[in-house]
């Protein structure tokens, strides 16, 4: 009985693991504008950058180009 419970628990734990990679052509959702840093509203990103610059006296180093679709 104990063995069965242990097996079931391990099975449940393993269900949380996945080795399936997201292929470049499966990145439809990642390529959406809302997935960009700052989301759909670029002004939020601008405002945050302004606050960061005011507080830290430095800028840059936030995010990378591209929409996450794996296109270079």
């Amino acid at each position, binding site marked *: 009985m104990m063995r069965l419970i242990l097996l079931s628990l391990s099975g449940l734990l393993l269900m949380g693991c996945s080795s399936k990679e997201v*292929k*470049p*052509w499966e*990145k*439809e959702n990642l*390529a*959406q504008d809302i997935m960009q840093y700052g989301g759909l509203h670029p002004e939020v990103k601008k405002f945050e950058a302004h606050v960061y610059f005011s507080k830290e006296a430095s800028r840059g180093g936030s995010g990378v180009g591209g*929409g996450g*679709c*794996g*296109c*270079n």
Partner: protein
Amino acid sequence: MIKKTIYALCFSTISLMALETGDSIPQNIQAQLNLDSNKTYVIDFFASWCKSCKKELPLISKVHTEQTVEVIGVNVDKKKEDGEAFVQKLNVPFRVIYDTNKEFIGAFDPIGFPALYYIRDGKIVKTIMGAVDNIDEQIAKDIKEIK
């Protein structure tokens, strides 16, 4: 039993390997793409959500094709309607295959997107992964080299 499992794992890994330069295209894919052995094919995988594809497709459409060269587009959108609308919007002049069940892209398994393959005699002779500036000039140059 263990031996069988190891063999099964090995074969499953081999079947999942991506097609690369020098590899032959599986017969069923060749038949479905209707490939002629006397022609050079430029196969471009694209999707409506891919911003680089939106940039590249009008340039690829400009590629001058001769009797011995053909461009084939493979759209990998989940919904065929999205792909059709995208193709219509960009006025794509070449043959487009809608790969909604991911059969073609699954067989080629490119490591980047958009993915472009040059095929001659049923074999991949060159690949371009990801977006390239002035792709039309690149294709023209590559076709000259392949011929």
